[in-house]
């Protein structure tokens, strides 16, 4: 008497198959490393284009997926939600992230990257002339805000001496060009897009406001989720090394890098070339976030009330140091095949 037999089989057979599929999928699944980036001249785009991530993916059985964000704040929110394992962002958002989230700064990958723009025929000569003017900025969480405060403070001015207007970074050169605002502080490549139009000019570069690393301002940092860092220090190292190799390539062959960036982020090649020639974004093998630089940077953010007095950024310079050693040991100039 087996009245329940076929019924049980109907249930158990698909159940067994489903379990096997699930177990199999788990065993063979590739782990995804979500890499937060912004559509700018980040060395990670060059690393990707040059295929530096492919051997990492093969060796560690992972998939590096770029997740693009318009600016640093949503990138940090994604990291706070656990959706990103590694990210590259402006030094302001990067330092906020490694102070407030379970994340660690592992490298500095771009210098400068910020400037104050004015209309080409503006009578303003320096940031000291901004008193009483309307200045567009990309928000309090951007590094542009504390840099603007610093530029004003250098002239004995404060934020209350100007009218601030919050806008998105790429819109700021357009607002300046149309004279909707008297000046604007933003990031690159938006700065270079504005300069290439011929309708705006530089009022001040970041290095004139806060030179803290070999005469330059620190523009961009790479930071990693602590849990990922602890679980995969080898993958973290490989990704940092890929970045440093890419920086070396940019230094060796700026024209090739401009072409690759243009293909990757859609910014015209001449705009990127202009950025490199005028030093709007500066690349250097000074990639190690030293305690001295970070102490100066942290004080800068605390002075601007962006960080709380109790905030302490987590920094791990050993990854960048090792990457630099590896790249310098096998340093060759890799030209882009045109």
């Amino acid at each position, binding site marked *: 008497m087996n009245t329940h037999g076929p019924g049980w089989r109907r249930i158990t057979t698909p159940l067994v198959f489903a379990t096997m599929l699930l177990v199999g999928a788990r065993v063979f699944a590739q782990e995804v490393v979500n890499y937060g980036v912004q559509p700018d001249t980040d060395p990670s785009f060059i690393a990707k284009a040059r295929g530096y991530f492919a051997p990492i993916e093969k060796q560690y059985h992972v998939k590096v997926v770029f997740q693009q964000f318009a600016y640093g704040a949503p990138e940090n929110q994604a990291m706070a939600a656990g959706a990103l394992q590694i990210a590259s962002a402006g030094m302001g958002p990067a330092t*906020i992230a490694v102070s*407030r*989230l379970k994340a660690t700064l592992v490298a500095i990958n771009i210098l400068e990257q910020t400037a104050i723009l004015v209309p080409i025929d503006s009578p303003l000569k320096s940031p000291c002339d901004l008193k009483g003017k309307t200045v567009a900025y990309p*928000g309090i*969480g951007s590094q542009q805000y504390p840099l603007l405060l610093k530029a004003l403070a250098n002239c004995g001015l404060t934020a209350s001496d100007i009218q601030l207007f*919050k806008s998105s970074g790429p819109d700021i050169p357009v607002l300046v060009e149309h004279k909707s605002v008297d000046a604007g502080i933003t990031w690159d490549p938006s700065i270079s897009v504005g300069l290439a139009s011929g309708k705006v000019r530089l009022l001040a570069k970041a290095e004139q406001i806060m030179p803290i690393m070999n005469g330059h301002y620190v523009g961009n940092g790479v930071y990693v989720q602590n849990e990922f860092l602890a679980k995969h220090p080898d993958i973290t190292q490989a990704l940092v090394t890929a970045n440093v190799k890419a920086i070396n390539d940019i230094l060796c062959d700026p024209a090739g890098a401009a072409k690759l960036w243009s293909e990757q982020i859609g910014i015209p090649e001449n705009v990127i070339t202009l950025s490199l020639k005028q030093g709007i974004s500066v690349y250097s093998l000074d990639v190690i976030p030293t305690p001295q630089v970070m102490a100066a940077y942290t004080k800068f953010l605390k002075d601007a009330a*962006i960080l709380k007095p109790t905030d302490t950024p987590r920094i791990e310079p050993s990854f960048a140091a090792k990457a630099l050693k590896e790249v310098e040991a096998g340093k060759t100039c890799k030209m882009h095949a045109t």
Partner: protein
Amino acid sequence: MTRPHRRRILSAAAKRSLPFLIAAIVIVVVWQLVVTLTHPDPSVLPTPWATAIAFVGLVRNGQLGVDALYSVARVVSAWLLSAIVAIPLGLLMGSSLRLERIVNPFVELLRPISPLAWIPMAILWFGIGEGGKVFVVFVGTFFPILLSTVAGVKAVDPVLLNAGRVFGCTSRLALFRRVVVPASLPSVVVGLRVAFGTGWAAIIAAELVAAHTGLGYLIANGMDILRADLVLVGMAAIGLLGFLFDAFFRALQRQFGGSS
């Protein structure tokens, strides 16, 4: 007002506030439980205590007061402007079928457009000052007042109109002034109350863009610098102010004989 009468009013007010107080306590207890059980990063969800400290800090340094004042001023001015335009227009539309037929298509075409969708146009038309923000709130508050007023006029009891005529309102204007307007007031107040709520929602969105003061700005900044405590303080202030204003309107509604 005698002492027992005052005591009765206070006791009634306390009774009405009790459910809200219980709701607030439940929210805080659940919030603390979630924090205790899940140990989230403070940037994702701070404790109620940390948020309370941030709240007190912002009250002490005056920032919360200034931001709340800016938001309230923007909402009140836009809401008053809406009331000035929408109430007379609504009274006329409710009384004249011809005018309603002319105006209604415009209302129905524009009404579904969210006030938030007007933000880019508001910046282009009114610039980065107060005008743009007031315009966005105006859009959000205008239609609820207008539609409630029209509905109020249409719902005036014909018995009242007949009574008005019997008691000497011989002209249409006199009937309108002495019967229609007072009889539609409860509905107008409902519209004003609803509009204040929608205006409050619109101002927060308007302040997320192109502002450097206000509770929306406080929230946006908190998000930008991963200060969830500031975001929650902004949200709590909005909830508290919204509750106080709604209580005011409910009291007003009771005065005009409407149910709250």
